């Protein structure tokens, strides 16, 4: 049994750890609210963008390099993680899904290149012996549209150059403060919109285009990709802070439990020592009487 002093010291250190986790929880909660607001604001735009593209695709018969499906010779997997840890299984879930996907692709005999967004993803890739094709750091925490633009630009350029024939993004989709789901989406080639689905909505009326169908397509497709990436970044951001909030909440609770059991132990030890001292005194008195 550890001595009284040691227990007191441990209680002290657990208490200060608890203060840290509690503060981190508060910070995460504040950041989370902000991130949640941003993603909720973006969603209607992203959805409308998709519906515009859908109605456009109904009538479009022209091709576009970003729509073209090539034989899958090399597939790019992008893992979207955070720069920081202490957020539960947030990063590991992504990487687990990424490694599983990589294995699957490789077992089909297709080449894989991997990129990571976020320091954690980059580190984990390197530890597993992968060399990231590209890694974007310093994004989580201050996501801006420019980040999405940069990433999209890089992807499109390499796709057009045929560095890879398919791009898959793995990110944490934000469901609620308690639920995040790992989501795997194919960014490129852009999924061809299903014609039968479109037809059921309304009779396909011929659209007028200004300046031209091709010009709008050229403009809208990369833009849509940017929005998709931006959305993923924001979803991941909100998920990260939510995950961190939960993790820190749990850590604070665990610290509370630990303090309680240590305090109990401390009191027991103190009581034992008092009892022992009393016994000594009584024993001494008894000895004197004789």
């Amino acid at each position, binding site marked *: 049994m550890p001595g009284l002093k040691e227990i007191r010291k441990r209680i002290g250190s657990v208490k200060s750890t608890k203060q840290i986790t509690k503060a981190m929880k508060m910070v995460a909660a504040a950041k989370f609210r902000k991130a949640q607001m941003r993603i909720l604001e973006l969603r209607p*735009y992203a959805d*409308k*963008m998709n519906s515009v593209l859908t109605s456009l695709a109904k009538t479009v018969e022209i091709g576009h390099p970003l729509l073209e499906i090539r034989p899958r010779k090399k597939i790019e997997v992008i893992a979207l993680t955070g720069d920081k840890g202490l957020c539960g299984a947030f990063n590991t879930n992504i990487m687990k899904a990424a490694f599983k996907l990589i294995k699957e692709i490789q077992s089909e005999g297709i080449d894989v290149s991997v990129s990571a967004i976020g320091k954690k993803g980059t580190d984990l890739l390197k530890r597993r012996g992968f060399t990231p094709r590209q890694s974007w750091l310093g994004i989580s925490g201050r996501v801006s549209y420019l980040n999405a633009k940069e990433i999209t630009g890089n992807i499109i350029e390499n796709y057009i150059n045929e560095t890879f024939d398919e791009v898959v993004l793995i990110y944490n989709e934000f469901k609620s403060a308690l639920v995040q789901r790992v989501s795997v989406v194919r960014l490129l080639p852009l999924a061809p919109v299903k014609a039968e689905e479109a037809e059921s909505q309304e009779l396909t009326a011929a659209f*007028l285009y200004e*300046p031209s169908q091709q010009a709008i397509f050229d403009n809208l497709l990369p833009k849509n990709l940017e929005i998709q990436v*931006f959305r993923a970044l924001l979803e991941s951001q909100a998920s990260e802070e939510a995950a961190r909030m939960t993790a820190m909440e749990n850590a604070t609770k665990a610290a509370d439990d630990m303090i309680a059991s240590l305090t109990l132990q401390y009191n027991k030890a103190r009581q034992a020592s008092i009892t022992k001292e009393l016994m000594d005194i009584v024993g001494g008195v008894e000895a004197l009487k004789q």
Partner: protein
Amino acid sequence: MENKLRLDIVTPHGLVLSEDVDEVTAAGTEGEFGVLPGHVPFITTLKVGMLILRKDNKTEYVFVNSGYAEVSPDKVVILADSAERAEDIDVERALSAKKRAEERLAQVEKYDFARAMAALERASIRIQIAERKIPR
């Protein structure tokens, strides 16, 4: 609602406006266009400009910073990079942006001409819209 148009203006920063209106006029890249209920389906890119909407004899102005418009017979969807209603425009900020852009245009060798030009245009249109609103 009959003979009304549903106008939705959405930006990456949220929904700016969603209303039933009688008429919409917007600045397309190929020129200004007006939309009344029953318009032919139409998709266009938008440049930086002013969107005018008429609703029960009232006119409102909205600043739209480039994007797309999808027009269907009973609906207009504007996807803009950013948009502000006339009363939400920060005139002071626009004025200082205009001044900054003009200064940069004066030193062409130091700054990106196209960017300064675009900034100037945005600021000028914002100011125009905001001022048009005042006499009303």
